[in-house]
């Protein structure tokens, strides 16, 4: 049993915690590092940066990814930018301000110490990436340029056209491949982790399935690092890459790792609305567009006119009207809920009336089309390719879509889960964003975890196991775990039901979107619990997975992932139901101010909810980590 959750936050002042802690943690000397095996699952920003840094330090690292190349991890798709408290713009930014904005943006549901450390190392990330050759945008003098992002009043976002994630990942990937060449990192692509292996209460390895040959393999190590991304695809339609899933984290959860705040999911305000039911994913238009685009809908319901026929007086620039200080740059949750409200009122635009306008005509008039093209050209092109409409001439149509998941495996200050030897990085952990993540902060967090936090903290854990060899992968614990995976694979192939995996995934997604989406209420959540369970039961009985286990079999891969999403969805509903307040991305209709803003309950809910698995069909146990706020005052977020 788990007692009260201790995040092991170091004592001392906020400013000195990390520096002091780095000094007090135990070190592993260079010769001994060579004797430690570390498994890193995931090659996105968090995994690649961690594996490269650990390899440089001399550890023996094994990287596992289901992608065909580490460079294809979902991080590649991030568009807008990465925050760094450099204050290059001399506009009043500082580590404390980035810390403050992140805590406030997260609606006071994150840990002060972690967030401060994140802000502190943010400046090093920019240096590291630049030295690797990441081509951040520059000004004419050759120095780095910045833009502003939602939830901030300073310009601290570094960007690389609309391809910031790609360029940062290529940087981390190149560092990783350097270590592969140096022999410190062993790379296994197209290997999917399907089980965490535990021994004596510690994580000692994983089981993978080779996606080409189907071979089930055991990997043993002194520590396991999960950097396996978020679970946004529980909604089926999201901006996440198609293969994103929760399996690695979920299998660890089933082995005892606590899953924290699963109901904190983020809906991104600027995505292209769905066009039909064959839609396979939603495309994000970077939120940086909100710097120059103005969001509006017609004043009246069912206004049949085209956007160019609607005069200014008949338009409602609803964000500028309601939030004069931040205008179109309010945080994501605020922008999303307001868009939903106007569409629900019947003022939505487009053929399915499921969007709002994001209009660049003023910006083009002011700066000229060339300036706008230089800033957003590739996003405009992408929009045109998908919709067949030219945004230089016609306003874009946008609508919120699931984009990011703040919840994830619970970790302490050292990024270790409650399972000894299991570390969790990047979007897969729950750590730094509270109930809502600010734009350009996920890339920052993934790289902070991988480059600058884990390389220190993992040594503090490993120091205890000096001289101990990693377990032999032929030990019974590994054999049993392999058998479990083999049996599971065989079970999917033997069901022979009538509907495809995708069919069930889509149906699950609809339930999750309807009941655990942008706004939630008790009735809906209770319904979600029973309907998800019923659909999940049918899934296990009636899914159709064709083919065999010893070939590249994409339906088979998806079958296990979707099963885990079903279990996760139930936990999301339970978490959302228990959290009787609104905060950040979690909006409970029962808890709102008279103006319709999120109403927190700090008395009862200023804590992290971390859930313990109790077996399929049994309700999970809720644990709490109390959040102490010593450096910021809890206020109601206001962006007016």
């Amino acid at each position, binding site marked *: 049993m788990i007692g009260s959750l201790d995040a092991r936050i170091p004592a001392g002042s906020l400013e000195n915690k990390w520096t002091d802690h780095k000094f007090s943690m135990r070190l592993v000397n260079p010769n001994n590092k060579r004797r430690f095996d570390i498994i890193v699952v995931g090659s996105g920003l968090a995994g690649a940066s961690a594996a490269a840094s650990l390899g440089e330090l001399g550890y023996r690292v094994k990287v596992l990814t289901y992608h*065909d190349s580490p460079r294809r991890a979902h991080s590649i798709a991030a568009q807008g930018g990465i925050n760094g408290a450099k204050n290059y713009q001399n506009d009043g930014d500082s580590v404390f301000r980035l810390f403050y904005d992140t805590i406030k943006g997260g609606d006071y549901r994150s840990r002060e110490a972690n967030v401060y450390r994140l802000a502190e190392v943010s400046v090093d990330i920019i240096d590291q990436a*630049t*030295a*690797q050759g990441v081509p951040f945008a520059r000004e004419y003098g050759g120095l780095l340029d910045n833009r502003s992002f939602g939830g901030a009043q300073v310009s601290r976002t570094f960007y690389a056209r609309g391809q910031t994630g790609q360029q940062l990942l290529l940087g981390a990937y190149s*560092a990783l491949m350097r270590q592969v060449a140096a022999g410190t990192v062993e790379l296994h692509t197209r290997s999917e982790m399907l089980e965490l292996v535990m021994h004596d209460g510690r994580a000692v390895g994983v089981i993978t399935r080779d996606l080409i040959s189907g071979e089930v393999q055991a990997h043993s190590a002194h520590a396991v690092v999960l950097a396996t991304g978020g679970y946004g695809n529980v909604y089926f339609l999201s901006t996440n890459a198609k293969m994103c899933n929760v399996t690695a984290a979920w299998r660890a959860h089933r082995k005892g790792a606590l899953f924290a705040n699963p109901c904190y999911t983020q809906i991104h305000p600027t995505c292209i609305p769905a066009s039909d039911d*064959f839609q396979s994913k939603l495309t994000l238009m970077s939120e940086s567009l909100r710097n120059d685009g103005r969001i509006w809908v017609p004043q009246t319901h069912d206004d049949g006119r085209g956007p160019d026929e609607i005069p200014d007086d008949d338009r409602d620039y609803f964000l500028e009207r309601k939030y004069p200080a931040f205008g179109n740059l309010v945080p994501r949750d605020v922008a999303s809920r307001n868009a939903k409200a106007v569409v629900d009122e019947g003022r939505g635009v487009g053929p399915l009336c499921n969007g709002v306008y994001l209009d660049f005509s003023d910006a083009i008039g002011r700066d000229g089309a060339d300036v706008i093209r230089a800033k957003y050209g590739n996003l405009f092109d992408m929009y045109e*390719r998908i919709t067949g409409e030219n945004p230089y001439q016609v306003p874009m149509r946008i609508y919120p879509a699931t984009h990011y998941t703040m919840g994830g495996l619970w970790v302490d200050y050292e990024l270790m889960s409650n399972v000894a030897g299991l570390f969790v990085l990047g979007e897969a952990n729950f750590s730094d964003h509270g109930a809502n993540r600010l734009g350009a902060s996920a890339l920052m967090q993934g790289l902070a975890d991988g480059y600058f936090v884990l390389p220190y903290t993992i040594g503090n854990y490993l120091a205890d196991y000096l001289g101990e060899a990693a377990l032999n992968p032929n030990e019974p614990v590994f054999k049993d775990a392999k058998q479990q995976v083999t049996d599971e694979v065989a079970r999917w192939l033997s069901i022979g039901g009538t509907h495809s995996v995708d069919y069930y995934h889509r149906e699950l997604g609809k339930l999750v979107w309807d009941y655990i989406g942008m706004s939630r209420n008790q009735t809906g959540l209770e319904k979600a619990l029973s309907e998800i369970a019923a659909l999940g039961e049918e899934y296990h009985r009636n899914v159709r997975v064709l083919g065999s286990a010893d070939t590249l079999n994409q339906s088979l891969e998806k079958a296990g992932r979707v099963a885990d999403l079903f279990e996760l969805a139930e936990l999301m509903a339970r978490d959302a139901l228990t959290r009787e307040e609104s905060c950040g991305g979690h909006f409970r209709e029962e808890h709102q101010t008279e103006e319709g803003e999120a109403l927190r309950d700090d008395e009862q809910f200023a804590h992290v909810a971390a859930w313990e698995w109790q077996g399929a069909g049994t309700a999970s146990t809720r644990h709490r980590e109390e959040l102490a706020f010593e450096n910021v005052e809890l206020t109601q977020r206001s962006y007016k």
Partner: protein
Amino acid sequence: MSARINLTLKVWRQAGPDTEGAFVVYEATDISTDASFLEMLDIVNERLIDAGEEPIVFESDCREGICGTCGLMINGRAHGPQKGTATCQLHIRSFNDGDHITIEPWRASSFPVLRDLAVDRRALDAIISAGGYITVNTGSAPDANLIPVPKETAETAFDAAACIGCGACVAACPNSAAQLFTAAKLQHLNLLPQGQAERWERTEAMVETMEAFFGSCTNHGECEEACPKEIPIDFIAWANRDYIKAKVKNRKLAG
């Protein structure tokens, strides 16, 4: 605007790396022109599963043209008919009712077929590990604004860095050369001040690793046509010049 059309697909099916493959014809009926090309294949696959047949294996992930996972030969053209567009961004509105579409995997000996339309592109990673990086251990970087980079240089390096590593350049090349990929990767780093220290070593190592896996370039220019990021072939000329210089300089350094 949006309409529904019928297509006839001729798709390469191959059960595994060591088995023979063949074309199979499928009727893709009643497809919305708003669907993406891959969504059309999703629909075909759903129908195959309903009929008890194994779905067509094709790869994709981001479906936004940035991860480089997808990549099909569509009517003999890498990524299909639309210029500067990855397969996942191609939409059915680019086709007409009644069209016959041939769909094949990348064809290159260095990209063995794994199954149906999926290929193994690990040879591209090998080129990167040969030298496609700047050696800078975590934590050792100077302040990012210490070295100004002229905007123009940064922009040109970016044009090269935009490569998504899809392998269309190789697939389109009659010789299956990987010159455009390698040149883009090289010039991204070789143009930047940060990349100068290892410029000559990098150039030699990457070019020679490329040659170990891929065919040689005879300036057909098909790669530029096929590149979804429209990376210009000029980078190849640039890289070739760097390679000649590298050979000379590296000999001197060695001597």
